């Protein structure tokens, strides 16, 4: 999201605190799905677009589907991962710990996968753009890493979906009523992979709670 008022991240090599310069989600033509800039290195929208365009062109041919890929671009480290027709990017300074940046990108990616029930593509992302924005908002705050654990991020974003669970184009109640169940399924599927069983249980109970609350609301209508 274009910042109108850019604030310093308070981080940089002087303070040796890891900093994220931007997070980009582009489609397979290099068009924006959701972007967020934290650095004033790209002061105008056209500077941002130019960066996105050349970065997209540079990385287009690489295979970043099973594992995230990495490159140095304009003296920045860029780590990227593609899924279906979506291209995820994270940018940091060129002396940033590459693995740390990769962890942030993976956290965001997995959180979105959790929330979108593992169907991550452009259409699903646009239909749930609110979820994408919220996930980005929970990952990085003005350049400072806020959370990297996918379950924690998804958990924080989940709270909001109790009521506004319908996708943008389906405003009817049909999908809304089925949503918590399928969400539960997704969470279980994902939860089974994580070794952190406690967190898994928490997520389950969270999902159950949301299902319960949703049921009461539908009944009251």
């Amino acid at each position, binding site marked *: 999201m274009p910042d109108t008022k850019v604030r*310093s991240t308070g981080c940089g*090599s002087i303070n040796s*605190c890891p900093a994220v310069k931007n997070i980009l989600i582009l489609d397979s033509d290099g068009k924006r799905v959701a972007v967020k800039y934290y650095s004033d290195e790209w002061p105008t929208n056209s500077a941002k677009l130019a960066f996105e365009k050349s970065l997209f062109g540079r990385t287009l041919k690489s295979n970043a589907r099973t*594992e995230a890929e990495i490159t*140095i671009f304009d003296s920045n480290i860029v780590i990227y991962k593609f899924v279906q027709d979506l291209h995820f990017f994270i940018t940091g300074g060129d002396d940033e710990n590459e693995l*740390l940046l990769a962890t942030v990108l993976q956290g965001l990616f997995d959180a979105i996968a959790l929330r979108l029930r593992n169907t991550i593509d452009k259409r699903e992302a646009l239909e749930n753009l609110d979820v994408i924005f919220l996930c980005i908002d929970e990952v990085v*705050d003005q350049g400072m890493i806020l959370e990297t654990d996918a379950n924690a991020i998804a958990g*924080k974003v989940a709270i909001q979906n*109790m009521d*506004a669970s319908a996708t943008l184009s389906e405003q009817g109640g049909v999908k809304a009523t089925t949503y918590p169940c399928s969400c539960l399924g997704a969470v279980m599927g994902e939860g089974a992979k994580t070794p952190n069983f406690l967190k898994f249980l928490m997520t389950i109970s969270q999902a159950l709670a949301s299902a319960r609350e949703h049921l009461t609301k539908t009944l009251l209508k």
Partner: protein
Amino acid sequence: MAQPFLKKDDDHDDEADYSPFLGIEKGAVLQEARVFNDPQLDPRRCSQVITKLLYLLNQGETFTKVEATEVFFAVTKLFQSRDLGLRRMVYVIIKELSPSADEVIIVTSSLMKDMTSKTDMYRANAIRVLCRITDGTLLTQIERYLKQAIVDKNPVVASAALVSGIHLLQTNPEIVKRWSNEVQEAVQSRAALVQFHALALLHQIRQNDRLAVNKLVSSLTRGSVRSPLAQCLLIRYTSQVIRESASNTQTGDRPFYDFLEGCLRHKAEMVIFEAARAITELNGVTSRELTPAITVLQLFLSSTKPVLRFAAVRTLNKVAMTHPIAVTNCNIDMESLISDQNRSIATLAITTLLKTGNESSVDRLMKQITTFMSDIADEFKIVVIEAIRSLCLKFPLKHRSLMNFLSNILREEGGFEYKKAIVDSIVILIRDIPEAKESGLLHLCEFIEDCEFTYLSTQILHFLGIEGPKTSDPSKYIRYIYNRVHLENATVRAGILLQPHIFVLLRRCLFDTDDEVRDRATLYLNTLVADGAVVETGEDVKEFLFGSLDIPLVNLERSLKNYEPSEESFDINSVPKEVKIQPLAEKKAPGKKPTGLGGPPPGPPSTIDAYEKLLSSIPEFSNFGKLFKSSAPVELTEAETEYAVNVVKHIFDGHVVFQYNCTNTIPEQLLENVTVIVDASEAEEFAEVASKPLRSLPYDSPGQTFVAFEKPEGVPAVGKFSNMLRFIVKEVDPSTGEAEDDGVEDEYQLEELEVVAADYMLKVGVSNFRNAWESMGPDCERVDEYGLGPRENLAEAVNAVINLLGMQPCEGTEVVPSNSRSHTCLLSGVYIGNVKVLVRLQFGIDGPKDVAMKLAVRSEDEAVSDVIHEIVASG
């Protein structure tokens, strides 16, 4: 009601470009935002409208002030809804709208209410939003809640408060510093991210207190930090402490090394890597210290994750520059990376191998690089070329395959910098490896047959002119040069004519369409055939063509203009060598030709060459050696005063010459015997040795007087000089221009003049700072941090330091983007004694206006690196 969201097509699956936002329009969405004002709020619908607004902003759409204000006010109504999901979106859009101060007041109470809510999500987000939009005045009101939040048992709330604290520290440090106790408590939190955020904030609060940072590091390295992110931070802080303490404790083991080494066994890869990198970057790291770090990096090289391989190979590549032997163990793993899908990794692997490999592997490596040179970006290609150049100098026997490689890539597509790197490399190889000369020259010849860069063509032709005649068969090269004469533009053609032995060629050029080409051809041709001897170019001719002219060019020009074609040929020896003052002749009698060889008006010579010639023409200064630097003129008088004087400081190794450029602006006066009396009592290391008065200074005809000082050789002595202009003034009758015979002695006070440290520094840029920096190596590196005190902004601080050092900013880094809070500036220069100096300045705003700076200096001489620090420390 507002227009409905676009209907989904039944068969949208087939439609590739389907988007729920297709055809979205700002005007329509702003209309839709009116639902925020409905008495019965529909949370789901409101959320969707907010998403559309966010989508528009995200696509780069801008709202006018009025539109933004309207949306903002409407959004504030949504605090009435108790819907959690909607509230979440409200928080996001408020941050995106960045309301102005008077607008912020509207939401303050709602946010403060949320900040004290029982719902964790409300508390966490309200803190983030409020801290993001508040201007500080509110901070004292909410400080109590923030302090509570830092130690909140919910980690999300604590993190929100801590991260906000990190941001607020930049603008309101005095308030945030009061939270130390709470932050310290949060460092002990069991929640991983809380610990990370707390540690980051605590360090930033204490970063200027070395002792406190030391204590923090000592206690935490003993305890257990749970979060990998926090552990990475701790490693960085530890490295800082090691760097700063290294100079104090020269004896015994390096403090905290054990901690870094212990981190190599951490379970998180990011921590292992952070520690390994920290070890490789230790000042003066020993091979014993390096070994465990290299071992873990080596394991990373065979990881399935590209990020891990990249991080490891990039670090090892750096290590290979200073400790090639330490990296040789990884050669086998490095080899397998040559075919890595990720070209960045492959390039780094190959260049590392080129630095560490042995002679037998060169051919194979070169073959492999060739396969993907076309796939990688120019910046990486240059890295490869530089690696090859140094390799070839290391293994001269391999020149054939390396030269072939260079010539092959020279024929392929590429930008100027890339091509220049290749040509430079070939030229260096030709110079240093005699066996490579003939093939190298031929490659260059072929290249100029089809070269799009005029600059490179001229450089190569010039080089051919120097090297060509020394080869076994110079005629080979003449053909290429001859081709160029026919095809190329004027610059290239003129460049070609620097080959003095190609006589037929020169004849041809007499018919060229370009003036300069014809002139040069005529000149060389006449020189060459002067005595009927075509090939034997005498010493004096060479001297004339390639030696330096020992008379000021301006004088020569003037004399040539005055020369009337006659039987007697122009005699260069009649040109005055001294810079003379133009007599008033022309004014007195217009039309009358100046008698004799009247000197030209000696306007201030602009280049160092001109200065050098000028100074060497003055016998008193001729034994001062080579001129190191001439400053820009410094005005010693106010504008529009009777006498305008500026001074140029000429720096020699053991002398300083002040050149006072004087102009008399009073038509009724003629000044004679003009000198400057210099008082050097505030410049103890300087002793006046010579002074050259100006005989006469007529109206509006500038003249120079000089004063020379001796100073200790090679020492960057500084000092203050006060100046007094002393002269004999004679009245001039404006009608006749005749001066009276009797004059009066008079004095005129000039402003003070200072010789500063920057005068001993030449502004000399480097094309690629990073390469220059790395090839300089850390042996004579000196790093320290400075507080520059309160400054208007970063740009002002950056400029001040650049001017203080008098160095050349590189790569446009002197420009500070507005509102930046940190900036890196790269400087390059040559210090007196011809010592190359590179400087990396990192600026940061610490607190409201205080600027802090980290200064890293690399040079060829550690004494010089220290001097740069002294300049900054005393500046």
